[in-house]
């Protein structure tokens, strides 16, 4: 399943203290949420906040820093007769696999234990997809700038943008355009932010979706159907593929 590079990277990262701490953090949060809330679906909502906040942050920052820190190792690999794309892919899968594993061990186990039905699966799949998206974005950040500080700065900005500023903009737009029928357009706008996409996906699985009113009904009509769910899933996959492929292209062509 893994080639040698991937195996080496996975082994290296799994020993990393930050990843261990991340696993532990997710575990403590998830267990305490489910043991404190007497209603498991409220627990899901609380966990949703945590998943949509910490997972992207840790994924993107850790990936970026790891890539900068292993620049010497990458250069060493490059001196060997291995194709560049193979090295980059190896790094990506290594990072994604170990962070996803951390998520599954930390949050996945309590989710599967306390939450029943499709909700648990969706929550888990979304967590893993969000990890993949932000690992891919981390790769983009690391390759854009040679300067480590700048790269990490971009990573933090991206995280801030997707988890906070984007929604602020959406709120602003909602009020500016409140006289127009913007409900359908909102489906398109939400596709521009993987975190929103994941959040709406999970909320549609919960009872609270009835509170979303007319707009929610449109979302449900769209994402609730098999085709809509496939499109939503596809969009999230695009959010992994596009940043990663762009970074790969830049890495392959880069003059090191």
């Amino acid at each position, binding site marked *: 399943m893994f080639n040698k590079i991937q195996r080496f990277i996975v082994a290296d990262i799994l020993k990393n203290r930050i990843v261990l701490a991340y696993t532990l953090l997710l575990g403590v949060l998830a267990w305490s949420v489910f043991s404190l809330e007497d*209603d498991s679906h*409220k627990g899901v*909502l609380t966990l*949703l*906040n945590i998943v*949509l*906040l910490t997972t992207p942050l840790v994924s993107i920052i850790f990936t970026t820093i790891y890539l900068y820190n292993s620049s010497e190792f990458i250069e060493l690999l490059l001196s060997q007769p291995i194709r560049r794309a193979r090295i980059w892919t190896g790094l990506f899968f290594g990072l994604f696999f170990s962070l996803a594993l951390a998520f599954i061990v930390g949050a996945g186990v309590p989710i599967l234990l306390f939450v029943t039905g499709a909700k648990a699966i969706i929550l888990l799949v979304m967590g893993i997809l969000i990890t993949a998206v932000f690992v891919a974005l981390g790769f983009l950040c690391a390759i854009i700038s040679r300067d480590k500080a700048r790269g990490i700065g971009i990573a933090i900005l991206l995280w801030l943008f997707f*988890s*906070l500023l984007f*929604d*602020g903009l*959406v*709120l602003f737009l*909602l*009020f500016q355009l*409140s006289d127009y029928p*913007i*409900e359908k357009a*909102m489906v398109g706008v*939400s596709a521009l932010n993987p*975190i*929103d996409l994941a*959040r*709406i996906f999970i*909320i549609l699985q919960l*009872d*609270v979706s*009835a*509170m*979303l*009113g*007319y*707009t*929610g*009904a449109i*979302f449900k009509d769209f994402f609730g159907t098999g085709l809509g769910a496939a499109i939503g899933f596809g969009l999230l996959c695009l959010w992994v593929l596009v940043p990663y492929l762009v970074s790969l292209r830049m890495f392959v062509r880069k003059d090191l």
Partner: protein
Amino acid sequence: MHTMCPRLIKIVLCTLMTGLLMHVGISRSLHVGSGHPYVSVKEGIAAADQGDTVIIHAGTYKEGNIIVDKTITLMGMDWPVLDGQLKYEVLSVKANNVVVTGLVIQNSGHASLDDPGGIKVYDSRGVHIIGNRLKDNFFGIYLQYSKHCIIKDNIVKASGTEEQQIGNGIHCWKSDSLQIVGNTISGHRDGIYFEFVTGSVIWRNIAFDNIRYGLHFMFSNDDAYITNLFRNNGAGVAVMFTKNVKMFNNTFEDNWGDAAHGLLLKEISDSYIFNNRFIRNTSGIYMEGTNRIIVEKNIFKANGWGMKIQASCMDNVIRQNNFMQNTFDISTNGSLVLNTFDSNYWDKYEGYDLNKDNVGDVPYRPLSLFSVIVEQNPPAMLLYRSFIVTLLDRSEKIIPTLTPDNFIDQVPLMHVIPL
């Protein structure tokens, strides 16, 4: 004089006794059914006199519209079925003090002009409809211009799918002093419908899976509904254009959907909502144009919105309720607040109680900024549970700027009120 008196009493007593005996002697039981003196219900009723009992034995009777136009008791043995063949009104009661019991009444005609019902009572007093089963009728039990009637322990069931193609379970119009007790109603448009009905009580009924409202009040003053269960109806319970209604001890459950409420109050005044349970509704209570109502000692649990109080409401008092696990406890659509919140328990309250008197030392503001935003701009609900919303709510809690100042519970309780 002294000798006259006992004799007079004797004469009076004798006359009374004879009258009573004659009356009992005259009152007969007429048996209807195959192998009985009367084959059809209509024949039985035609042969009956005032005060007789028509006993209908098991079997299916397809006799079109059966009219009861004299004071008799219509009693079913072993659940005889009166079938309207989807064409006729099954039983029309047009006399006072009629008793209808033990019948299965099914398949009344469907028509929106003359509203045929399973049992329809026209302009009568003292009619008792007790312990019947009504299946798949357009209207189940329909009362108009009736007084002092008792509708008790009936099972009214239909399987309507669209509002305009089915009538109400128990429909009362322009009536007075009714008792609707212990009925189970499902699958109709409204479970129980009151229009221009006064001085009546609705007690211990169960209304579930109805297409529109479990209970619907229009222009009906001075009524009470007590200890009923309203579950999973299209839009909950509606009380509109009414005054002086008592709502005690009811349970409003699982009225969940885009336009569903536990209890919808519209243009109603001087009423009392006491000791009810609102559980898992999209909004527990929705109030509009509601004045001088007391909402006391209720439980609001796991609703989307505990209460939606529109700015058109005035002088309502909300006191000593438990608000638990609601997504939003309260929301409103304006900045004008003319209602009072007093001594409620809010599970979102984060204050402290230094002197341990079970009253929080800092006031509680039940209105979150996000609920105000959503009220002004419903699509904003899409941002529900996003980071920015949490952040906005937090900052608003610390320094309230956008939410109304006086939307406040000055004495929030620290512990759940045992209800």
